[in-house]
C-alpha cells in the first residue's frame, strides 16, 4: 500500500499512472521511427529509387554550385608583369631577346612591304639569340611577342602573324640558328582607322618544351607572358619608305 503524497492526496503509486494518462503520444523508440520512415518511403519507392535519389542529389549539388557562381569562368588573374627597359635583354625560353625601338609606315618597298589600302605597318627592331642547341622556326618567336596594338589586323579569328626580317638585307627569316645573335625587325600590320602608335607595349612570353598531347611531336608550346617592354614608335621618314 502506498503512502499518500503530501498536499495532493494522491499516492506515490498513482503518479506514473496519471502521467501516462496525461501524455498525448507515447515516446517512440528509434526503431519505430525507422519503421515509419520505411513505411513513408514505401509510398514513393517506385518513383524515388536509390538511383533517382542520387541523380537528384547530384543535380541539386550542381544547381546550388551554379547559384553561388561556381560555374562562372575563372577570372584571369591580373598579374603585373615585370617591366623591361627598351634594349634590355631578357631570357624568355627558348630565346634571349631585347626590343629596341620602332617605326610605323605605309610602305617599305625595299623590304617587300608594299602599300595596302587601310593598313599601316608597325615595325620594331629586336635582338634575339636562340638559346637551344637546335634550329628554331620563327613561328615560336612570333608567339613569344604579344604587342598591345590597337586595331591589329586579323587573319580569320586570330591576329595576323607578323613578318620577321633581317635588318642587314631585309630577307625574311624562317629559322633561328642556335647561338647566333640576330638583329631583326618584327613587322605587325595595323588598320589605319586606329591611331598610329607613339609607343608600343610588347608582352614577352616564355615557352615550355614538351611532347604534344595529340601526337608524338616535341616542340616549344604554351607561351606564357613573363615581362613587358614599351618601346617608342615614331613615323618613318617618308623618303626612307620609298626605297
Amino acid at each position: 500500500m502506498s503512502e499518500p503524497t503530501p498536499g495532493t492526496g494522491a499516492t506515490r503509486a498513482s503518479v506514473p499512472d496519471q502521467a501516462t494518462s496525461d501524455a498525448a503520444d507515447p515516446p517512440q523508440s528509434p526503431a519505430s521511427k525507422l519503421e515509419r520512415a520505411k513505411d513513408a518511403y514505401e509510398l514513393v519507392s517506385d518513383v524515388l529509387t536509390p538511383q533517382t535519389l542520387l541523380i537528384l542529389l547530384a543535380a541539386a549539388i550542381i544547381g546550388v554550385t551554379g547559384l553561388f557562381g561556381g560555374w562562372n569562368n575563372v577570372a584571369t588573374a591580373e598579374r603585373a608583369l615585370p617591366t623591361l627597359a627598351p634594349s634590355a635583354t631578357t631570357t624568355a625560353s627558348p630565346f634571349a631577346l631585347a626590343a629596341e625601338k620602332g617605326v610605323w609606315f605605309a610602305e617599305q618597298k625595299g623590304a617587300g612591304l608594299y602599300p595596302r589600302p587601310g593598313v599601316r605597318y608597325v615595325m620594331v627592331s629586336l635582338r634575339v639569340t636562340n638559346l637551344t642547341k637546335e634550329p628554331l622556326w620563327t613561328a615560336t618567336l612570333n608567339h613569344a611577342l604579344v604587342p598591345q596594338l590597337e586595331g591589329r589586323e586579323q587573319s580569320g579569328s586570330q591576329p595576323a602573324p607578323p613578318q620577321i626580317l633581317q635588318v642587314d638585307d631585309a630577307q625574311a627569316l624562317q629559322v633561328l640558328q642556335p647561338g647566333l645573335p640576330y638583329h631583326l625587325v618584327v613587322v605587325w600590320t595595323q588598320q589605319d582607322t586606329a591611331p598610329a602608335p607613339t609607343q608600343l607595349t610588347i608582352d614577352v612570353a616564355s615557352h615550355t618544351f614538351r611532347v604534344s598531347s595529340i601526337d608524338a611531336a616535341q616542340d616549344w608550346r604554351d607561351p606564357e607572358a613573363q615581362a613587358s617592354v614599351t618601346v617608342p614608335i615614331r613615323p618613318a621618314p617618308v623618303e626612307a619608305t620609298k626605297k
Partner: protein
Amino acid sequence: MKTPPRNLVTLGVTVTALTLGSVVAERLPTATQISVDPIVRTAGQGEPVTLRTGTFTVTGVRASPQVKGVAYGPAHKATGRYVAIDVEVLALGEPRFVATSSARLVATDGRSFGGPLADAPVCPAYQPGVIGRCTLLFDVDPQALSGMTLQLPAQDDFVGLGPAILERADIDLGIDEARAATLAAATGTLDLTDGAPR
C-alpha cells in the same frame, strides 16, 4: 648417385643455347630503336654513302660571310658564316630529292644548324642513274666549324610528326682546327648560281 652422361650433354646444350640466345638478343635492336632511332651510315668527305634513296658524296666544303644566291637582289650577309656543302647525288630507282631542309651540320658542342634559308639554291629532282650535284647551304657559328659533321637524311621530313627520318648518313667533313680557321677567315662572296666561288 651418378649423373648419366646424357643428362650432362643436355645441360651443356641448354646452357650453350641460352648463352647464344642472350648474345644474339643483345645485338638485336630494341623496339624503340627500330621505331625511333634512324639507321645511320657513316662516311667521310669524298666517300660515297648509299641510303635507300640514292648514293651521296660530299665533294667540297666552302665558306664565306656572304652569298649570292638564287634569290633576287644583292648578295646577302650571314648572321654567322655561310657554309656551302657540295654533294654529288646518284638517285636510286626513281627521281629523288636531296633532304635540303632536314640536313643538319652538327658541331662538336652538340649544336645543330640547318633548316630553310632564303638564299639556298633549290636542288631539283635527280633522275636515277644520272649523277647530279646539289649544294646545301648553312648559316653557322664560325667558332663551331672544327669537327663538324653533316647529317644527311635519306629524305626530307615534311610531315613533322614522329620519326619520319628513318635513315641518314653522318658524313665527317674532315674540318680540323687549321681548316676551320681557314673557313672562318674566308672572304668574298659565294656564288651558288654556278657552283664556284666568285
